[in-house]
């Protein structure tokens, strides 16, 4: 059976024999409201033994549905309406209950996004991993040894100690290693990884990806890797399939697809990620217009027709068949040959815009001269925010911030970077008055000291400082309409009412590119991007001076992220607002920031103009962060590996807090004993390290 399908539509390069996973013509429907709605349509793919296959797509593209169907875990209302799934020669859809159990136990393993949820919180790690071996029929002693061995294979340094711990005692990266160990313990033919690194920090993500790559080499397991992150897929996978609205629109070798995409959607996706060195004054990021249609809303034509820049009449009337671009490379686009040019043209266009248009040219939009005071651009802009010796100690001696001093210049963006646990969010909350800092800390706005608690701050100060939270679902009250939510800042902070409020509300809605029809809706009725626009509009409603953006795009798809970043950049230009932009995504930070502060364990490690921080010399921690980011263009710098875990903030290491993980720790031992000085690398660029900046530069000569 597998042979016939292989000859029918398998890529020529695929070796004959049993594929680890073969999906052909798969269609899946979900029954909602008594109607079967298609979620996946006619998807075919084949993973050969030992191959890593990446499935890319934005939320709603159907990638997780495909993965669930492979193990027959579709929700009750989901149904495979056509096609077949074969795992290691077995027809998954036709298996009996017992055989299916067998298949799930031995042939397929899955790793999900949230490692802590995949582990049973009340079982010790050792017992959980051993369970897998117990299913394989091992006795107790063998299980112990096999478990320790397996944990060693996923590079856990002290397996015996980790086995005695409970899942909540593990860090995210460690927990994901344990999950991967469990997944591999059954030596499955197929390993399905569903966004396995999305919940992890970049440094940890890099380690997990390295681990997956080396385990593949060791075990020869086939991998189905699902992710929305193109760069991650590019790093791990041999071949890649791009899903859009439930259809596989492009497939091919990972390198080629990302270098020379043959479908306009792939092009759009690639272009919407801020590329290395791209900045807000280079002009807006290219976005894909419109919204992802639900698969059942797509008519007879191409699924992407409604948003495609290359659309022709034919696209709207008949769905394009898979075109073989080159051997093993398929695109469902009539104009695939032109798609790649679109990428080039797009790049050129963006570049020429950036070269030709001076940022100041964009600063004066003809329509709105607005409130740009003539003296705003003076020679030495005063800091709008100044933090002096800010510390924050939580109960139990956890020092989230330690003697942080920084300034933000009016109208600029200060990017704040660091792993989780570095104190980024605490810093934002202290500034906003949501958490009082320790006594002795000074937080000033326009030179005036701010009260530690928001309740004690006068209205003008509240109005001046606003925030856009990471998760709009949490930040918007789900019981209120968009109109109510946006009226709040206008009524409370701007003091508007009646007709004036309505007029300003309409302006505000237009400024964030929402529409009037969204006003009566509740947040749950909006897409993720629209919700974040509502949150942004609320922050801007009172006319703020400073807006804190706490990972505002990390919950969004890349194409939506681009639109939100453009909106933020645009609002900053027009309203001259200052941003404190917190993100773990260095590409995003670089795009928006004028200055960057790197935090580690609540301490400022590096502070400087964005370009200087990215160009170097870097603090060794910054260097490690930068090298952890997977790059789409395939240029792989020598990875700086960070050893070990981020230490506990309750008992930070002596000397330099980073010395436990520092790849450039000095042999003299000074790093372990003496806190490092802050040294100036350049004008306004300072690094907290024992190694002088000049020496750091020569050490880092190879990178970037």
């Amino acid at each position, binding site marked *: 059976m597998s042979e016939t399908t292989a000859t029918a539509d398998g890529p020529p390069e695929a070796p004959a024999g049993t594929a680890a996973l073969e999906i052909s013509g798969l269609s899946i429907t979900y029954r909602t409201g008594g109607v079967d709605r298609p979620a996946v349509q006619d998807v075919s793919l084949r993973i050969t033994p030992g191959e890593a296959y990446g499935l890319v797509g934005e939320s709603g593209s159907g990638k997780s549905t495909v993965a669930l169907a492979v193990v027959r875990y579709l929700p009750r209302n989901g149904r495979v309406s056509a096609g077949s799934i074969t795992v290691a020669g077995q027809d998954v859809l036709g298996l009996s209950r017992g055989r299916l159990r067998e298949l799930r136990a031995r042939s397929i393993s899955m790793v999900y996004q949230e490692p802590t949820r995949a582990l049973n919180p009340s079982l010790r790690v050792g017992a959980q991993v051993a369970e897998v071996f117990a299913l394989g029929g091992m006795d107790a002693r063998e299980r112990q040894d096999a478990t320790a061995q397996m944990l060693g294979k996923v590079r856990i340094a002290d397996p015996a100690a980790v086995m005695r711990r409970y899942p909540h005692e593990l860090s995210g990266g460690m927990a994901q290693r344990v999950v991967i160990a469990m997944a591999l313990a059954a030596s499955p033919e197929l390993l399905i990884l569903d966004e396995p690194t999305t919940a992890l920090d970049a440094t940890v993500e890099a380690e997990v990806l390295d681990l997956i790559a080396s385990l593949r080499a060791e075990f020869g397991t086939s991998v189905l890797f699902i992710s929305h992150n193109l760069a991650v897929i590019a790093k791990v996978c041999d071949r890649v399939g791009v899903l859009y609205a439930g259809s596989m629109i492009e497939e091919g070798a990972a390198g080629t697809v990302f270098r020379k995409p043959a479908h306009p959607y792939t092009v759009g996706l690639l272009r919407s990620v801020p590329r290395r060195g791209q900045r807000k004054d280079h002009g807006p990021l290219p976005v894909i217009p419109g919204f992802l249609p639900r698969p059942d809303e797509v008519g007879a034509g191409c699924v992407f027709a409604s948003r495609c820049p290359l659309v022709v009449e034919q696209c709207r009337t008949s769905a394009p068949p898979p075109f073989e671009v080159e051997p093993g490379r398929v695109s469902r686009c009539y104009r695939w040959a032109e798609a790649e040019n679109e990428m080039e043209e797009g790049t050129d266009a963006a570049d020429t815009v950036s070269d030709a248009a001076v940022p100041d040219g964009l600063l004066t939009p003809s329509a709105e001269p607005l409130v740009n005071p003539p003296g705003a651009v003076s020679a030495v802009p005063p800091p709008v925010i100044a933090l002096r010796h800010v510390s924050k100690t939580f109960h139990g001696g956890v020092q989230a911030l330690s003697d942080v001093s920084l300034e933000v210049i009016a109208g600029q963006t200060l990017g704040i970077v660091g792993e989780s646990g570095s104190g980024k969010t605490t810093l934002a909350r202290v500034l906003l008055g949501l958490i009082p800092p320790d006594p002795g800390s000074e937080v000033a706005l326009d030179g005036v000291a701010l009260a530690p608690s928001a309740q004690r701050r006068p209205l003008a100060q509240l109005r001046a400082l*606003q925030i856009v939270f990471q998760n709009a679902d949490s930040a918007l009250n789900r*019981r209120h309409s968009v109109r109510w939510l946006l009226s709040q800042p206008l009524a409370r902070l701007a003091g508007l009412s009646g007709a004036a409020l309505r007029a300003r509300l309409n302006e505000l809605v237009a400024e964030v590119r929402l529409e009037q029809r969204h006003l009566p809706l509740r947040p749950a009725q909006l897409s993720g991007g629209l919700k974040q626009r509502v949150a942004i509009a609320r922050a801007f409603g009172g006319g703020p001076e400073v807006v804190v953006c706490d990972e505002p795009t990390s919950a969004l798809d890349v194409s939506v992220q681009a639109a939100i970043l453009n909106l933020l950049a645009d609002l900053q230009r027009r309203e001259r607002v200052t941003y404190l932009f917190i993100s773990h995504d260095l590409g995003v930070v670089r795009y928006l920031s004028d200055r960057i502060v790197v935090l580690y364990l609540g301490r400022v490690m590096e502070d400087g103009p964005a370009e200087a921080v990215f160009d170097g010399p870097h603090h060794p921690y910054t260097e490690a962060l930068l090298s952890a980011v997977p790059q789409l263009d395939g240029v792989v710098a020598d990875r700086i590996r960070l050893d070990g875990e981020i230490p506990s903030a309750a008992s930070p290491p002596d000397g330099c807090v980073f010395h436990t993980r520092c790849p450039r720790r000095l042999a003299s031992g000074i790093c372990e004993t003496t806190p490092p000085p802050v040294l100036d690398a350049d004008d306004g660029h300072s690094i907290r390290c024992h190694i002088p900046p000049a020496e750091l530069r020569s050490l880092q000569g190879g990178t970037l």
Partner: protein
Amino acid sequence: MTISQTAPAPAAAPLAAAPPRWRRLTRKPTFLVGAAILLFWVVCAIAGSSIAPDSPLAQSLLATNAAPSAAHWFGTDQLGRDVLSRVLVGSRDILIITPLATVLGTVCGTALGLAMGYFGGVLDAVASRLVEAVLALPSVMVAFLFIVALGPSELTLIIVIGFIFTPLIARTVRAAVLAERHLDYLPAARLLGAGAWSVMVMEILPNVLPAVLVEFSVRLGYAIFTVATLSFLGFGIQPPTPDWGSDIAANYGVLAAGYWWETLFPALAIASLIIAINLITDSLEQVTGS
């Protein structure tokens, strides 16, 4: 008829919030059955005296303990009063007292629970211990104390039951508020200058309202049972006012003599009302997902 039909609806409709939910509710057969029974008793409570075949108070010493017949469908009691009439009219006081008592308990409990959950700290610690202390007392004993102190009256019953329900409802609401407290819309509201009062009422309350609504209907069922119990024990609605609980108390002595109808029909009335409310509660719980 039309008046009474709209009467129960507005009480629930504003709480049920989104119209789709309301429509999902009216599509549930369990809800429809419950609502129909409740509606029947509401009609009886409002228009009982005109529907009833006889006066519930009219004694007929010539026809005491008469078995159910064409003249007296539910028979007569020891004083020859028509049981059917007494059952129909007997719905009035209980349907006045219990909703008012439950509303009182729900309003006080919600306010207390909101404050406990929102402010936390010392207020929450102290109030939580008080709540536990009240809950530790048997509720009938608390009721006796009140009634003995204040004298049995409808107002006393309302206050007593409201008081007993307040800590129960406060505890539920507090838990619902705690689930909201980690959400970012609360700091967002504070940054817009909203004070504690408006954060609690405008931001949190709408989100805990489904839980409050369910709690209200659960407590309403308990309230009916409590009033009937107190009446049975002689601490509730006082004779000769027709009332199911006191009628059972008055007549269960002659049950052994074979006069079953005098006890059974008021008992069925209590059961039907409680079942109706539970059916409505279940549907509400399913629809609000709490």
